[in-house]
């Protein structure tokens, strides 16, 4: 589903990603952990070309993102992304947030898009908030709307960049709950997170990234209970 080959990313002189390679299978849930500034967000953003790739290849569902002939908007429409700070559109209601892209990108009518949106709102537990504006929602509700908005495009992959880091602790659970449901339904997911409990419970595989390199990867039991690399050990001893 996702293939990353020797991915390098530099900002000016600084190389942030120093040759990442991996393959992520359909329905797999991959959690990416690592210290702040290690390149987790940059890696995720390269997966839908929010960052230009300096060198290497990213192939998603057969589309080579680095090929200039690839329709990047088409690929992006199949890759959902959830941001740390939600990035809801504040001038639109919850429902309008969700139906915008299906109408403008997929060409659905408003009625069709709304018909698809309502069950999604039910899924994230916000049926009664369709007409609300984002400003009136709690952080947890906003993030659930953001998830519904991404799901409205029927993505093949969902990317999450620290989706619960900006939330009050008591609101983290409701968002993780929705993500867990998604994982159980078989969504392919790449999740950058500091929620080690989630990574352990839901992740099929965990990547530990440090200074732009995948230092260690494996099933959660191995990474959390029996890390091989000393940098992984050091990081986990700090966060667990």
């Amino acid at each position: 589903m996702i293939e990353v080959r020797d991915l390098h990313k530099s900002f000016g002189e600084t190389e942030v990603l120093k040759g990442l390679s991996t393959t992520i299978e359909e329905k797999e849930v991959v959690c990416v952990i690592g210290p702040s500034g290690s390149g987790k967000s940059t890696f995720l953003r390269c997966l839908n070309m929010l960052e230009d790739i300096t060198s290497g290849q990213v192939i998603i569902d057969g589309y080579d993102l680095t090929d200039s002939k690839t329709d990047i908007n088409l690929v992006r429409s199949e890759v959902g992304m959830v941001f740390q700070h939600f990035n809801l559109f504040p001038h639109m209601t919850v429902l309008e947030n969700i139906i915008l892209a299906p109408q403008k990108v997929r060409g659905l009518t408003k009625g069709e898009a709304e018909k698809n949106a309502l069950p999604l709102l039910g899924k994230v537990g916000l049926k009664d908030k369709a007409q609300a504006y984002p400003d009136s929602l709690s952080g947890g509700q906003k993030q659930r709307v953001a998830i519904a908005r991404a799901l409205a495009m029927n993505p093949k992959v969902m990317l999450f960049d620290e989706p619960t880091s900006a939330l009050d602790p008591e609101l983290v659970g409701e968002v993780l709950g929705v993500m867990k449901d998604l994982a159980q339904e078989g969504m392919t997911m790449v999740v950058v997170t500091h929620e080690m409990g989630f990574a352990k419970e839901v992740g099929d595989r965990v990547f530990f990234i440090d200074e732009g390199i995948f230092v260690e990867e494996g099933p959660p039991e191995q990474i959390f209970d029996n890390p091989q690399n000393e940098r992984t050990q050091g990081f986990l001893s700090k966060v667990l």
Partner: protein
Amino acid sequence: MYVFTTTNNYIQILPDLWIGFLYTLLITIVGVLIGFVLGALFGLMRISKNKVIYGIATVYIEIVRGTPLLVQIFFIYYGLSDLTGINLDKLTASILAIAANAGAYIAEIVRGAIQSVEKGQMEAGRSLGLSSRQTMRYIIWPQALRRMIPPLGNQFIISLKDTSLFSAIAVTDIMYQGRQYASSTFAYFESYLMVGVFYLIITIPSMLILRQYERRFERE
């Protein structure tokens, strides 16, 4: 001369000022509307990554902002007709001058408002598969427009007052009408007092509306 300082002048000047009032409003409203279209265009050019497009907009804005409006109106009214042989009428020249002038200031308002929209909004739009044009149109622009309204209102008031300079080419605006009345009756005090009142009739309500909008805006 003393005999002219009667309350009659306050009334007798009204028909003249009424005509001036209509001209001033016409020049300002049409000029600022065209200026908004120009401003939107040049403002968008100012955020373009294309150096040529950016450069053209920057040159335009700097020329307009770096020269007096009086020079601009003389350039458009006398200079351009000299060059092209086409004689613009005074009203058209005035509207063009306000449009070109306000356009440059509005361009900076537009640029600032667009750049004030959080970067994450563009990213969220693009990550859903919207093109950058669609994201601009449905997500960035509507949010920027709301932020533009207070400074646009300000610019309207500034442009309104600026039109008084156009009496120099004898367009029959409030200022010109007042001057004519004053010089034919020698009632300078009454004339210019009434001229001021006529400008205030537009500016004070405009400012009140603006303030109300800003207050509502802050609450949101």
